[in-house]
């Protein structure tokens, strides 16, 4: 790619225009699993932002010396190494949350967003741009996660970040903290977004 768009544009593309979750429907496994509590969501977001940025940067730095045939394996190993760092850090400093997140921190490795960015962007772009691209994408992902948690936690538990926000008599919608509530919330969000921007429907797919 000879003429690179300005960094700000790369950043905004990831953050909103090509939002990984809502537009490309990527990486939703962990999106749905951790969003029943805001705290878990925030920790997950930080882990993901770190992993995406650093692995985009590393893949980009190594892009000239990586043989084409084994690039997937190299990318996976780079991603896995960063995820192990995140996992050990969370285990050491936030043991309770590590318990609650269970295997989902490790599942960042198979999160399609990271692999997708490495494959689609970092593989043939300079490190600076790749880092910005990773930052935009992961922040876009985080925003959606926070939005979903913002809907699910108050309705399901009546709290937000552990503080009570709903009135005392509020009957908890238990379904919101279970699997179906997650599917409904994300489904409706994707629907609303597509409804208001229908002209982008026939892009690359």
């Amino acid at each position, binding site marked *: 790619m000879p003429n690179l768009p300005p960094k700000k544009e790369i950043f905004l593309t990831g953050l909103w225009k090509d939002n990984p979750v809502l537009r490309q429907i990527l990486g939703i496994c962990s999106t749905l699993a951790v969003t029943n509590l805001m705290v878990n969501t925030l920790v997950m977001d930080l882990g993901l932002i770190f992993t995406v940025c650093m692995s985009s940067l590393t893949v980009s730095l190594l892009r000239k010396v990586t043989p084409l045939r084994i690039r997937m394996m190299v990318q996976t190993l780079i991603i896995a190494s960063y995820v192990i760092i995140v996992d050990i850090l969370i285990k050491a400093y936030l043991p309770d949350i590590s318990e609650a997140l269970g295997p989902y921190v490790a599942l960042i490795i198979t999160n399609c967003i990271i692999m997708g960015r490495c494959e689609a962007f970092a593989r043939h772009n300079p490190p600076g741009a790749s880092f910005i691209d990773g930052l935009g994408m992961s922040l876009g992902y985080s925003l959606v996660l926070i939005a979903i948690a913002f809907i699910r936690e108050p309705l399901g538990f009546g709290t937000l970040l552990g503080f009570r926000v709903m009135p005392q008599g509020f009957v908890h919608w238990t379904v919101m903290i279970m699997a179906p509530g997650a*599917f409904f919330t994300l489904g409706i969000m994707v629907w609303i977004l597509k*409804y*208001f921007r229908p002209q982008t429907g026939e892009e690359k797919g």
Partner: protein
Amino acid sequence: MDAINPLTLFFAAIFTNNILLTNFLGLCPFLSMSGQKKSAFGMGAAVVFVMASTTALNNLVHFKVLVPLGLEHFRYIVFIVVIAAFVQMVEMTVERFFPALYFSLGIFLPLITVNCAIFGASLFMVIREYDFVQSLAYGAGSGIGWMLAIVAISAIREKLQKTAKLPRGLEGPAITLIITGLLALAFLAFSGMIRVQ
């Protein structure tokens, strides 16, 4: 921890603890492959086989090699490599000896390496400390559960495309997510029948 009967675990993994509908794993291929019943079936069959084998294999690798050597922290990398190598090997074997099967199933095999359900099953196996037989039962059950879900959804989506007129923006991933939610709600009816964590 008292040992759970492998058969119980097998059915629990299909119904009460369905890996897709309660743990949200393997959603990416689920959404992109569930358009047609035929490809959903092929993908599902490939997942059943790979998941059962790799979960059992990773069980051996983790408890017989990594734990004695004190290398548990490296298990993510090791698991991924085991899964990738296994898929590659299966692909080569099938291509060499069963070309007909390769053309119907083979195209799904490379996609499986990045299927988070496969990796997730191995991680759950470690966290819940299953032994070898339990891992095999759990892997097979989870795979069948995943296949059940994707075949069900693809059948619903095929019907939907023929008959329903959807509002703007709802077609595609949005309606699939909502149907999946309804399916998950239906599967909640099984919960409590078997209790496995």
